[in-house]
């Protein structure tokens, strides 16, 4: 059933390729319907945790290579919410891509990608996981660099890091397969065997785990790999950025939850010989630190970036950092909080990226200091962004706070003071850069050239409204998401967290989200009554401002000049001047140069460019799959 739906999506995507440019809207509407179909398909699969599909490909040296698909609660949960969210984003894409030049390829590839997305979450052995994973990387690579010519350079980071991750993962899988003790691709079996190996051959087990960690962290852009999202998000199509940031960056975290967390919880519970800190293995503690440091570093990078999509991309990295910190605490509160934060982040970051895409759709401008004052012209977009940043900063009545609260509770109840502090600092910094984006894009003075900017059409507002509704709903009733998460973490062998629809409980405190929301509404009512009591309010022009007595019009002051947005936190940046020498991107640049040289020498051999070689790689993989299918 899953594979059939993939075939259906594949054929549909090829067919939509033949739709003429005039009917772009039709193509993207088909995309939306396909996603609705996929969501429905997943919905019907809920609860069938023993459902599986096996497709034998071929025999190599006595080993049966096959594609194994199985629905686990974890996989189902991820697959369902990503597909639904993708569907919501695709509504936005319908009109956004009406007049785009290069959208035909994107539509086709994105359709395939949404099928591969389910494939990753449904695969039950490492080989299947690897195949889907790599196909996803390659397909997304072509979406991020539309037209195959623009923005090739920056996307190379993404590709190189994906390659590093792929090699690491392949090595780990090979090591597992070659080991006489394991000798299988099956994930569930391997996990148990890795634990046994941990007890017997510590070094080998350790290297396997580290290799997996490298694979997953490079995908999720944790600390040493934290620069690709900024490059890739900045260049990707605007609506795809939402998908990239909300969903694709989470594959690494899914991998962590699938492989690393079970192994580490086995170690926590059953191993006597492992060094522990506060009840979790030292390794896990270190990984939590990687998450916390990522959160802080990405926050500082975001504060200093001037491009709005880069800023949002660094914010994504920081949020992945929070989630990783929560997950590696390994308590059920931490893991549930981590998963919850993944979901929440996907939602609010989609809100942020969609509203930024709406801004770019109307203004064709990306540098924040050239924008300004758009809130007065695009109120729905502004509200979406505002709620997005409130959620992202973890401020109460919205969803981001519920998951951050859970992560804090897990850190506090497991007694990690320094980690808590790091996360707190990152969170305050998040407020800094998010406000900067809010101000530079939506508040302040509206430049003259945007005087006739209008709100986006209703079809584009619809996903924004849906996402806003979701943020508020989850903020008021965290149980909506936490109850399914309880099913997931129970299947992972952790005890479920105590939660009702409106209340969240931890060992040291309890929060009633509904009350929090009502308190805010009540306080707003009090403030509003005071506002009504006051004397009347006069409306004045935007440039009728305090200018020390000088008439701005006579002085030749324009609204653009009166908008303070460029180098917003410059003195703060000055404080970190000594650290500017540490330049991660230069390191990756050197790697990229190395790859390019190698590629060029290959090209000299084959008279093909690197890109064509990549294309050959896909064709080769496709050929192998199709071969296996029929034989």
């Amino acid at each position, binding site marked *: 059933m899953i594979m059939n739906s993939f075939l259906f999506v594949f054929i549909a995507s090829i067919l939509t390729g033949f739709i003429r440019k005039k009917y772009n809207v039709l193509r993207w509407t088909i995309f939306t319907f396909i996603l609705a179909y996929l969501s429905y398909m997943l919905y019907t699969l809920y609860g069938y945790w023993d459902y599986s599909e096996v497709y034998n490909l071929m025999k190599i040296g006595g080993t049966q290579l096959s594609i194994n698909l199985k629905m686990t609660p974890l996989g189902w949960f991820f697959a369902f919410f990503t597909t639904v969210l993708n569907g919501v984003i695709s509504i936005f894409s319908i009109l956004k891509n009406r007049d785009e030049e290069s959208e035909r390829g994107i539509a086709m590839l994105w359709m395939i990608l949404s099928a591969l997305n389910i494939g990753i979450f449904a695969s039950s052995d490492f080989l299947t996981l690897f195949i889907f994973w790599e196909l996803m990387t390659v397909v997304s690579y072509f979406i991020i660099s539309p037209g195959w010519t623009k923005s090739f350079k920056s996307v190379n980071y993404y590709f190189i890091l994906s390659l590093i991750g792929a090699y690491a993962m392949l090595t780990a899988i090979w090591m597992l397969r070659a080991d006489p003790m394991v000798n299988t691709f099956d994930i569930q079996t391997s996990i148990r065997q890795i634990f046994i190996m941990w007890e017997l051959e510590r070094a080998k087990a350790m290297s396997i785990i580290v290799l997996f960690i490298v694979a997953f962290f490079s995908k999720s852009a944790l600390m040493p790999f934290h620069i690709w999202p900024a490059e890739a998000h900045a260049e990707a199509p605007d609506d795809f950025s939402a998908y990239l940031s909300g969903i694709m960056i989470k594959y690494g975290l899914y991998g962590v939850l699938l492989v690393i967390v079970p192994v580490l919880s086995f170690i926590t519970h059953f191993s006597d010989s492992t060094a522990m800190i506060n009840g979790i293995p030292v390794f896990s503690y270190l990984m939590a630190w990687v998450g916390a440091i990522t959160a802080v570093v990405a926050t500082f990078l975001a504060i200093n970036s001037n491009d709005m999509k880069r800023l949002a991309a660094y914010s994504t990295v920081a949020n992945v950092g929070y989630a990783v910190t929560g997950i590696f605490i390994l308590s059920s509160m931490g893991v549930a909080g981590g998963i919850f934060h993944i979901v929440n982040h996907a939602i609010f970051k989609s809100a942020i990226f969609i509203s930024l895409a709406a801004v770019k759709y109307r203004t064709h401008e990306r540098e924040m200091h050239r924008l300004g004052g758009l809130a007065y012209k695009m109120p729905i977009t502004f509200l979406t962004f505002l709620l997005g940043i409130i959620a992202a900063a973890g401020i109460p009545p919205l969803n981001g706070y519920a998951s951050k609260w859970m992560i804090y509770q897990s850190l506090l109840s497991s007694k990690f003071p320094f980690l808590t502090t790091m996360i707190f600092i990152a969170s305050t910094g998040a407020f800094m850069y998010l406000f900067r984006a809010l101000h530079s894009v939506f508040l302040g003075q509206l430049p003259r050239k945007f005087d006739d900017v209008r709100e986006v059409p209703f079809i584009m507002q619809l996903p924004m409204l849906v996402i806003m509704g979701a943020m508020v709903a989850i903020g008021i009733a965290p149980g909506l998401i936490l109850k399914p998460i309880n099913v997931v973490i129970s299947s992972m062998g952790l005890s479920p967290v105590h939660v009702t629809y409106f209340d969240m409980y931890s060992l040291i405190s309890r929060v009633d989200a509904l009350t929090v929301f009502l308190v805010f509404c009540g306080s707003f009512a009090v403030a509003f009554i005071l506002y009504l009591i006051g004397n009347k309010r*006069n409306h004045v022009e935007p440039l*009728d401002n*305090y200018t*020390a*007595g*000088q*008439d701005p019009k006579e002085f030749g002051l324009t609204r653009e000049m009166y908008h303070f947005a460029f180098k917003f936190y410059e003195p703060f940046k000055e404080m970190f001047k000594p650290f500017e020498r540490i330049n991660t991107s230069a390191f990756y640049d050197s790697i990229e140069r190395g790859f390019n040289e190698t590629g060029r020498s290959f090209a000299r051999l084959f008279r093909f460019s690197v890109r064509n070689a990549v294309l050959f790689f896909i064709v080769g993989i496709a050929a192998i799959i199709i071969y296996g299918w029929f034989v």
Partner: protein
Amino acid sequence: MLLTSSKDLKDKGLDVVLDFFRKKSLWMLHYCTGCGAIELPPTMTSRWDMERFGMGPMATPRQADLLLITGYLSVKSLKRVIYTYEQMPEPKWLIAFGSCPINGGIYYDSYSVINRLAEYLPVDLSIEGCMPRPEAIIDGFTKLMKSIDKGEAVGYKRYRENYEWYKKNQAEVLERTSPVLKEEVADETK
């Protein structure tokens, strides 16, 4: 003459109560045009302590109730003062400070300093002297408070009602298009 406004200008009702609070909390914006500004620091600080009347300096016209014109006012700054005064939210008051805004003072024959501020903006109170001592300033402020309490200091209403008259006077000095002393120029060329 300046302080005798008709009773019918004053709103009845709640304003009687609110005027009590307004007079007790006069926040001022001193537009430091001339030498008078130097008399304000001693008035504000320990020796005379203006704060005991609830008064204090404010940074912008938006927050201020009281605009102080401290000393002579050149034509060029008159334009800024008018802009500032119009930016202040009502109710608002204006104090002319020293001799210069009253009749030109020692600058009575200057080509660039206006002689009578009351022709261009509604002055609620004038404090004479060159310069007025802090005692005189505080005396002036208490007088202003009294007239606010009686509902007599309604310069902002006068300004609103006679807007055209004020604008005409302002335009006379600010938006001139032809030379004033034409004949003498002609004389000189002969």
